[in-house]
């Protein structure tokens, strides 16, 4: 099967020390001595930082002056610098796919303590890379034209900011939101930390701007149902549920709601008030149009009858719209962790135990209580306990820090003191107080001066005396003492988790989520807003907990990445596709059956035909092809078999 490497192969091997990262464990000099004598290797070099300008120059000059035509770089993971070195080859006029990376940092020096074992493993991996590289074939990556439009999924503050940035740069944006209004979680907040400015005052103008922007097409009550294609050309199917109210005709006069007799819990006020089944989601909703909650509607017909504009139509049908975009920004946000899952804190069982989001609505001047902080019996609370990290940093619930709850707790202290006076007793139970952002520590100091009890300790379960007094015990680690707290009201600073449906979106968009359920980024440091899939970007809480300021920064970063792609107009695809040797094809059709993307069809003579535009380069067809007619570039059978032989050379005896 293997006819050996082509005769003119000249391999250059470049071993990187990565400072002490590799060099401190792997004996790079001895590795170079070993691989030097391998067939076809004509240049071997080791250097402190191969990715540096000088390191790359070593590679370029070996290609130009010594005629090296296959390059092995033994360094960090290809996820880190494969693209850097591909560019190096290109600069030296060598096909960039004639590069093979031997990952001797993440796979060797960072996971192996003993130097001799690490050096031996590095030798194996580099030898395997050399064997593989000798058989590598040049590959001409297809040029992809970038469709001049962007899809933004989720219209919370991150999605709105991203959409506006792209639109301001002159590009078309499709902004898709599942709820009847844009605004997301930020629209539900009362005031924001550390500046205590009103949340809707800063968000509402942004919402209006997005809705009115000539380059933004807004889809509310809509979800992405299907995505086909890849970077440059994604065909996106958007499913829109009917609003039953004509957006053009409705003036939000509210007549319909006055006629409606059915009341249900208002989700915008987290169930603290009622709304009609025909309703405006909230006062500043965008679009400012009513919507019918068909699940609860009794079809009495009164609202349609009384609507002065005749805007209500019960017969509106669900729609499917298909749009074509070049890139995608995911900003699907978060949901509060369900307090019912933390049974010991009795939320929803005992009265006067609130989540922080419920408190936001209670504090809000036009909220369900008109901005009055009252107990369920109508009295004003004299003492309030705030519990941080509820469900966060907890192996039984969410292992990660929610990143907002410390500061939100401090903000709540400041607002409660402002509303109920200095005499209000406030107890904050925290594990660690993390005031890490700009202006956060200063705000913390201000709040500390407000006569608040800060207790470092995790509360016991919340109980209630027969008289109805709430209480819990907490061990104060500073006082080294068990304390009993008997507050009138308790606020739970809840953990957060990815929006329900994130898993489904991950499948629809073909981009993975991590163990915590949030979208994974391409690189923790160097690719924070790029998803693992080319052309798809992530911003805000869908990639992990962040506060508003960070969400907005990420949204702008993701938008700028999307704009870069659009402005380039043409990019080279960064994945390989198979090569089809039609002479070897027997016409069995197995490849057609196994291809997940319908990228292979059968010609009239039953032999295969590859539609490269649809191919995503998984190589499954090549593994199934019985004759070897299909070979994936960079992962061809002879290349991988050679790699295995190199890896195991002395094991076979």
């Amino acid at each position, binding site marked *: 099967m293997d006819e050996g490497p082509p005769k003119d192969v000249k391999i250059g091997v470049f071993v990187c020390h990565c400072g002490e990262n590799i060099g401190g464990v792997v004996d790079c000099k001895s590795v170079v001595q070993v691989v030097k004598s391998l067939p076809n290797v004509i240049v071997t070099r080791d250097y402190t930082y191969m990715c540096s300008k000088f390191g790359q120059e070593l590679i370029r000059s070996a290609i130009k002056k010594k005629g090296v035509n296959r390059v092995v770089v033994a360094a960090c993971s290809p996820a880190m610098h494969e693209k850097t070195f591909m560019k190096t080859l290109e600069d030296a006029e060598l096909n960039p796919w004639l590069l093979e990376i031997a990952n001797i*940092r993440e796979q060797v020096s960072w996971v192996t303590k003993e130097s001799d074992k690490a050096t031996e493993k590095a030798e194996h991996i580099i030898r395997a890379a050399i064997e593989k590289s000798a058989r590598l074939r040049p590959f001409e990556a297809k040029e992809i034209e970038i469709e001049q439009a962007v899809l933004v999924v989720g219209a919370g503050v991150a999605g709105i900011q991203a959409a506006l940035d792209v639109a301001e740069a002159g590009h078309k944006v499709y902004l898709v939101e599942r709820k009847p209004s844009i605004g997301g979680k930020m629209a539900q907040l009362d005031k924001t930390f550390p500046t205590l400015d009103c949340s809707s005052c800063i968000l509402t103008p942004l919402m209006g701007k997005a809705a009115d922007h000539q380059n933004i097409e807004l889809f509310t009550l809509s979800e992405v149902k299907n995505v086909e294609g890849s970077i440059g050309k994604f065909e996106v199917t958007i499913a829109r549920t009917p609003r039953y109210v004509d957006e053009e005709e409705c003036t939000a006069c509210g007549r319909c709601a006055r006629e409606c007799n059915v009341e249900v819990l208002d989700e915008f006020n987290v169930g603290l008030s009622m709304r009609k089944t025909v309703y405006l989601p909230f006062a500043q909703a965008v679009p400012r149009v009513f919507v019918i909650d068909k699940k609860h509607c009794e079809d009495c017909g009164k609202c349609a009858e009384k609507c002065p504009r005749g805007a209500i139509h019960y017969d509106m049908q669900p729609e499917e719209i298909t749009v074509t975009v070049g890139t995608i920004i995911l900003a699907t946000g978060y949901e509060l962790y369900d307090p019912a899952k933390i049974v010991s804190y009795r939320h929803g069982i005992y009265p006067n135990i609130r989540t922080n989001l419920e408190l936001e609505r209670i504090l809000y001047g036009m909220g369900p209580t008109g901005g009055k902080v009252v107990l369920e019996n109508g009295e004003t609370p004299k003492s309030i306990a705030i519990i941080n990290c509820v469900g966060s940093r907890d192996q039984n619930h969410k292992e990660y820090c929610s990143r907002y709850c410390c500061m939100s707790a401090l903000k709540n202290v400041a607002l409660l003191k402002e509303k109920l006076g200095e005499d209000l007793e406030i107890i904050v139970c925290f594990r660690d107080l993390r005031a890490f952002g700009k202006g956060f520590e200063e705000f913390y100091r201000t709040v500390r001066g407000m006569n608040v009890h800060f207790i470092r300790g995790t509360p016991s379960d919340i109980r209630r005396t027969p008289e109805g007094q709430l209480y819990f015990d907490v061990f104060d680690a500073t006082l080294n003492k068990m304390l009993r707290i008997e507050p009138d009201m308790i606020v739970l600073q809840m953990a957060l988790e990815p929006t329900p449906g994130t898993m489904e979106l991950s499948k629809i968009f073909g981009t993975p989520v991590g163990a915590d359920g949030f979208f994974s980024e391409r690189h923790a440091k160097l690719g924070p807003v790029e998803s693992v899939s080319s052309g798809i970007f992530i911003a805000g809480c869908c990639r992990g907990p962040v506060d508003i300021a960070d969400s907005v920064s990420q949204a702008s970063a993701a938008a700028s990445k999307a704009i870069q792609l659009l402005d380039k107009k043409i990019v080279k695809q960064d994945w390989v596709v198979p090569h089809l040797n039609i002479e070897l094809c027997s016409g069995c059709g197995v490849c057609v059956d196994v291809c997940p993307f319908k990228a292979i069809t059968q010609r009239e003579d039953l032999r295969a035909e590859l539609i490269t535009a649809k191919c995503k380069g998984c190589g*499954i067809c090549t593994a199934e092809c019985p004759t070897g007619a299909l070979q994936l570039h960079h992962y061809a059978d002879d290349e991988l078999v050679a790699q295995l032989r190199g890896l195991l050379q002395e094991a076979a005896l």
Partner: protein
Amino acid sequence: MPSEFEPRVVIFCCKWCSYAAADGAGLARMEYPSNAEIVKVPCSGKVDALYILKAFEYGADGVLVTGCLLGSCHYLDGNFKAENRVKFVQNLLDEIGFGSERLRLRFLSSAMSNTFVEEVREMVDHIRALGPSPLTLKKITVSE
């Protein structure tokens, strides 16, 4: 069997999940046996039966194929195809008397570096207990 026998284990890693999990293990400086070595593939569904058999032929004592969690394949169902193929090769290995226990398939996500390291350690222990591959014991010369 020599008591200091250290097996050679080849791990096929899908670039979307287990390869990234292995990178994560490196980043977190988790330690795992140095005799487990990785071959990168674009998808576990790309692991040809040929590669597994060649790995054994060339002297691997164990082969671990790793793919994304079922339902999370970047290419929709590549890991299901990998599952079928690994079962096929396991049957084949049983039929020829080599034994299927030297070949394993595991599913994990890119975030599961801990699981990756545990699986690798367990695989190496498992193969160490099994002893050297019958192919390397009999010193079969590999003809090319």
